[in-house]
């Protein structure tokens, strides 16, 4: 399955690395990423990820990040078959 997730983060040292480390370690693939600073210390990140496991495996771990303020799963769709 492929998922689009929106994260609102506190813009602290290594915050993006923390997010990407969790995605990699929990066996999801990063398909796309957009990042937008918001004000002085916030960051909105949209991630497109794919993986074989339940998305809860990833989101429950991301939810534990100290600098994460909000996580929303925006879209969930089957992976496109390759030709």
């Amino acid at each position, binding site marked *: 399955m492929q998922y689009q997730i929106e994260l609102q983060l506190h813009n602290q040292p290594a915050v993006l690395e923390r997010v990407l*480390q969790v995605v990699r370690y929990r066996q999801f693939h990063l398909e796309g990423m957009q990042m937008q600073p918001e004000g002085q210390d916030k960051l909105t990140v949209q991630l497109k990820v794919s993986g074989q496991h339940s998305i809860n495996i990833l989101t429950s771990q991301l939810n534990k990040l100290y*600098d994460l*303020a*909000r996580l929303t799963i925006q879209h969930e769709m089957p992976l496109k078959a390759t030709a």
Partner: protein
Amino acid sequence: MPLYDAMLDSPVSHYLTRHEQGAAFAAIGQARSSNQTAVCIGTSGPGATNLLTAVADAKLDSVPLLVLTGQVPTSAMGSDAFQEVDVLGLSLSITKHSFVVERIEQLPEILQSAWDLTIEGRPGPVLVDIPKDVFLAELNAQPETVSKPGKENFNSSINELDNNNLQSIAIANQLLKSSQKPVLYVGGGVVMGHAQQALNEFLQDTGMPAVSTLKGLGTVDKDYALNLGMLGMHGLPPANYAVQEADLLLVAGARLDDRATGKLNEFAPNAKLIHIDIDAAEIGKRRAADAAIKADIKQVLPKLCREIQFADWQARCANLQQQYQQNYVFSPQEQQISGPKLLRMLSNKLNHSDIVCCDVGQHQMWVAQHIQFSSPTSHLSSGGLGTMGFGLPAAIGAQLENPQKNVVAVCGDGSFMMNIQELATLNRYRIPVKILVMDNQRLGMVKQWQELFNEERYSETNLSDNPEFSKVAQAFGLEADVLESVADVEAKLDWFLQSDSPSLLHVRLSSQENVWPIVPPNTANHNMMEEHHAISN
């Protein structure tokens, strides 16, 4: 240097170990034996990297540890300066969180946040990296308030059960009422959540059979009739059979790890699952829960149903206990010292609150199987990471925290060599840890696997060139002796336990003795092997 200079005039008690890994494991020993946060410090570069194995150990075993690392000055950071390493980057996957302090004004609040975070929810290590110029600066201005992220849509209070959890508890109570064969599966989270008493009250009220993980050992009252002991790869047959036959598992503060479950898709095949854990990420991670309770276990246990009946199942479990009872007493004609029998005798001589730390390998499993514990805070064993070299430095920290108790480090000969330099720390502070080196001249657990599962192709597991450990210990200023005959076991254990000094007893064991039972890898837990054949029930 500025931190150590300040310590000269500080009331903080500081203990210098001979390797930073020793310091972090000693802090783990202090934290695990007290269920409270402990602190370790390392300097920049190699000092920081030397801490990291133990920090990873603390992460996997949920140990509240505050780790302080020195860093090069902020002006030099990012320039590959002497003894500069990106410790923040290295820490990402092995800490709950890590901070870098950029200005002295941030330091008070970051330290407080880091300390609080070590024990908030599921405990774990938190690292604070502090550049040298921050150490040298004086705090003249008002401390800064560091923005602490608030989480939205997140239940931050562990003192109240939210509606989702109350609904899950209602489902759990239905499952309990309809169960004919329930088993309580006890993990290390129960004691970390200060719920040992609540759990034993639940057991007394229900009479439910109970099994424990490695880290849960000691939680269930040892006199509780249906305390079936440890489950898993080296678990006891009654525990493994009961779990495989159960129709309901009530999992409390445990993460269903692979060494406990065996082959996952054949684990407890007929059981529904109630899973209680403070860390929501553990629920459903390895097996879906029929009732998922993401909450503080102390709040949950009093709300679980007590009026449940399963007399036939209790009789079945009692029968399993009787069927697999074994005798572990030395007989007069025995020549060779047996590891399990030695540890049974040691267990009988210890007070109920004494502490045993161990390394990793065969002796670690013998400790889990044969020493009786009254609390997981008395059994310090590297569970998740399985770090050889854990035992001696963990015992140092546990003894400093518990000066009135006997603290015994049960070490394998392979593991002992991995932090042997901490004998100097024992001597420096005259810390009366007792070290029992169980020497079979092998990396025994690997040898066991090579023997059983790799056609006896022994590769790099022979340690017959070990040093004479008693002489090494004496050179470090310890009292030491060698134990090599069954006739001397009792007297030498007594000498060892009664000593007021740091002391070492070097026990010569056969290289042939293995840990039994064993569940072969990728095999269901009911397929245990005993010494000569598979056992059946």
